[in-house]
């Protein structure tokens, strides 16, 4: 199974996990969350991320779902991700990306899963009033 680590500013990731698990079911293993607080020093953040990675390296692959490209989660995880053979760091996490990651991490291989997470995340961004109410 492909493992997942969620790293976000504040409790965003923890609440996103709660919401996504309500939709596709509780993830009993292979999932960790790191919530980064402004009260944490950079050293502390690095330690928290390194300790989350510990034991999550999987032959099937490891996917990091993080919030902002260029934010602290990305800056901290990238140097650590360099040494993990099969891993991806995916920015811009939204709920569709997370439900896809949870729903397909056992059935898709690593490359297909990472492609699907990004595709489903992009598809989720849409203005539905104009899309669905043209006729009215």
């Amino acid at each position, binding site marked *: 199974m492909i493992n997942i680590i969620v790293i976000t500013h504040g409790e965003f990731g923890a609440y996103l996990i709660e919401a996504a698990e309500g*939709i*596709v*079911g*509780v993830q*009993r293993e292979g999932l960790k969350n790191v919530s980064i607080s402004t009260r944490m020093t950079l050293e502390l953040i690095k330690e928290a991320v390194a300790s989350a990675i510990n034991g999550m390296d999987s032959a099937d692959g490891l996917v990091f779902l993080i919030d902002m490209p260029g934010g602290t989660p990305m800056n901290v995880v990238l140097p650590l991700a360099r040494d993990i053979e099969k891993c991806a760091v995916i920015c811009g996490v939204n709920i569709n990306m997370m*439900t*896809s990651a*949870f*729903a*397909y991490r056992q*059935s898709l291989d690593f490359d297909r899963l990472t492609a699907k997470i990004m595709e489903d995340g992009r598809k989720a961004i849409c203005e*539905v009033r104009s*899309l*669905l*109410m043209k*006729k*009215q």
Partner: protein
Amino acid sequence: MMVLYRVDDRLVHGQVAEGWVPHLKADELAVVSDEIAADPLRSDIMRFATPEGVDLKIMTVEQASQYLPQAETSARKVLLLLPGLAEAVALLGKGLKIPSLNIGGMHYSAGKNLSIGKAIFLNDADCSALKALAAAGIKIEGRGVPSDTPLDLIGAIA
């Protein structure tokens, strides 16, 4: 073939699209509701919520009684969605065989005072309908998503 018979008042939504469809590898969602069949906007919204590569059919109870016997013998995997127990009782009344029924969501409204799990709220009429369905030989479970532990609803209302 029919891969799931489900009662869920939200019909096509996240638990179905992201939970059950990949779990059962469903090819088609069949929504049976006279109300939705007569409502183009809600039909469009449901089409939008249906995953790519999956067909959506929306039909009345009458149409379903014709369609479902064919769907049972087809190689396509069909997931049936009913908005409430009334549709299940109506299909049964039309002679349709339902081996098992998954109760995924019956949300709270006034008078639905018996709650079981997070998303099932029943009034007296619901309990009678469930008992009638069970008495007809239908195996009934309460379960939101595939990985949840099934709830014994008949045991809970006995």
